[in-house]
């Protein structure tokens, strides 16, 4: 395993000039995955439709992928991208693994390859849940990275099965209604239950843990699934420069706790106490985003965050959901 600083010095295969929003967490995730995969092993990516694909790969936009300026003779530095749609990313990765294994078996390929599938939460949990679970269940030796920004961002911020309660999205508007009322899909449990070899929920804001998890995911038996909470500046509607802060606050307050788990070993929740009193208050997380502007407001003088009049019960409900979420993560960590 490389140290965090060693990783920071690596040559990412994701480069500048993409058309993603300024401060997009999907971009940060790709930068770091690009660095970790500069490990001397050829990488094959299968990228499902999402902001991260449309803004870095799809015509007529630019291609923001490449390592160095020359075409590389160095097999270990090279990488490929298989362009496809949402639900196909995991199954295409699985198929690629099968082909690579077959080529290795017959001696046509003499060096190993690593395979990473990426996509958004809408692609993974709405459009492609079936193929996601299928690939995990087949124990394909691939890493599946799911960028969870809790919405269909690319098409205009519609609700996804990962949207947290009360969020204002374009299909669960907080106008005459409280926002999203559907409890999110328990995707971490689903991945474990489907047979994943490794499951993690980490964003690059947890720098060391994130790169370690990606590194580890390339080695484990079976399918590794990494859910990356990805604050979306345009969909969550927050100020510039708060992406990392929100990713940390969301994790620490219990909305999407940092979590790692391996089959046979169990797992752990990091940086997020099971005791609500020891965690940052979730209202601070809400107050930074305009998708919760109907729930809370910040006192201009004291800076204190309070429920909007009439919203006290909603806040209590939301806190209850967060507590349940944290407890659920702790109990998932005990699975073997």
């Amino acid at each position, binding site marked *: 395993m490389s140290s*965090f*600083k060693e*990783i*920071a*010095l690596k040559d*990412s295969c*994701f*480069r*500048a*000039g*993409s*058309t*993603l*929003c*300024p*401060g*997009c*967490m999907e*971009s*940060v995730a790709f*930068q*770091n995955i*690009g*660095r970790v995969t500069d490990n001397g092993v050829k990488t094959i990516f299968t990228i499902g439709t999402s*902001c991260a694909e*449309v*803004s*870095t790969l*799809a*015509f*007529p*936009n*630019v*291609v*923001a992928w*490449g390592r160095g300026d020359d075409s590389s003779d160095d097999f270990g530095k090279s990488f490929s991208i298989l362009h496809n749609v949402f639900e196909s990313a995991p199954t295409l990765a699985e198929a690629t693994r099968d082909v690579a294994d077959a080529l290795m078996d017959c001696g046509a390929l003499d060096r190993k390859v690593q395979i990473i599938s990426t996509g958004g939460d809408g692609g993974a949990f709405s459009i492609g849940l079936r193929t996601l679970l299928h690939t995990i269940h087949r124990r394909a030796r691939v890493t599946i990275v799911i960028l969870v920004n809790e919405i269909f961002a*690319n098409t205009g911020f519609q609700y996804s099965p990962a949207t947290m309660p009360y969020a204002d999205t374009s299909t669960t508007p907080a*106008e005459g209604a409280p926002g999203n009322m559907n409890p999110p899909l328990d995707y971490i449990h689903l991945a474990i239950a489907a047979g994943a070899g490794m499951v993690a929920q980490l964003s*690059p*804001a947890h*720098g060391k843990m994130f*790169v370690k998890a990606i590194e580890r995911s390339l080695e484990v038996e079976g399918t590794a699934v990494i859910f990356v909470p990805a604050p979306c*500046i*345009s969909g969550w509607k927050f100020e*510039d*420069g*708060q*992406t*990392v*802060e929100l990713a940390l606050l969301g994790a620490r307050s219990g909305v999407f706790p940092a979590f790692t788990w391996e089959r046979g070993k169990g797992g752990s929740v990091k940086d997020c106490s099971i005791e609500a009193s020891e965690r940052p208050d979730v209202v601070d997380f809400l107050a930074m985003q305009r998708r919760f502007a109907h729930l809370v407001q910040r006192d201009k003088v004291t800076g204190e965050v309070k429920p909007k009049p009439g919203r006290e019960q909603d806040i209590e409900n939301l806190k209850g959901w967060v507590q349940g979420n944290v407890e659920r993560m702790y109990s998932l960590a005990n699975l073997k």
Partner: protein
Amino acid sequence: MRTLDPRQIFEQSALEVRGDGKAGGGLVLAFQSLAALFSSLPNMHVQEWPFFSSARRGANIRSFLRVSAKPIDVGCEVTRPVISLLMDEVTGKTVDFAGGVPHGGTFVLNTRRTPEECAKHFHLSGRVMTVPGDDIGTRYLKHPIGNVSAYVAMTEAIGGLEFETVVGTFLGQLKKRRIPEVLLERNREALHATKESIQVGVFDEARPGDHATTVFTGYGELPIGAQTRLRLSQTNHTAAFARSGFRLLFNDPNKSCTGCSHCITNCPEGIIRFQPDEERGVLVTGADVSAFCKLCGECIAVCPEKLFTEGKYEEVWDETVTEARS
């Protein structure tokens, strides 16, 4: 010089209008409001649509508008607008906002500069109107957003419109977007404050061949894989996505960088510059600001030593550059 009267044009055929700006800069709202304004007049035919790719906040976008007293029977993009709006000076660096505008047309610019400066810089022949929309936005809306003023300037460019209707239509569009009441009030103030700030002048600065409409005739003979090579991201200078008028600064005279690497791993663009360092592991030396920095501010937020800051940045209009381009 004879200038073209927009009102006469839409009486006879379609008045064609075009706007250039950045995604997220309010161009679409300004054009939608113009469209709503004309739709509210009796017997008017209106066509309006924005044009953008999936490129996001900060990328160049265009808006089109056609207004006519007679039915409009074309639907293609506007290539010879009689009124052309430049919403953001930075956009003017990569897009010829005056492209195809006939001699004597109207140029509306959201800028602090004077009509004369603009006419000289962009080589404009016709009526030039400027409005410091970002400043008005900052003053009334606490945000350097110039679309409120650009909209008013556009209505002045067309002329003959009832100011109360102009104001009411814009506020109506904001209401549709669920903007809270307090903000509506501030927008009303900004709309009213704009009128006195508009400057107008007539200039003849275009040289032969300036702003000619270019016709795409294909890429010519291409080698295999050229399609991809033509649009590699290194040529996509996303620094233009950054908020206009500001730039990222790095200052570390005492080498206080601890080498924590947080800026490196949290930069969405991967443009932090660094060198290996014996003591710290890594020493950060800056960032590739002029080409790719979108000014998202993450490095500013994560650096424990506060070595990154955001500074005001005024584009120097170097006339030799424009000469070279045209």
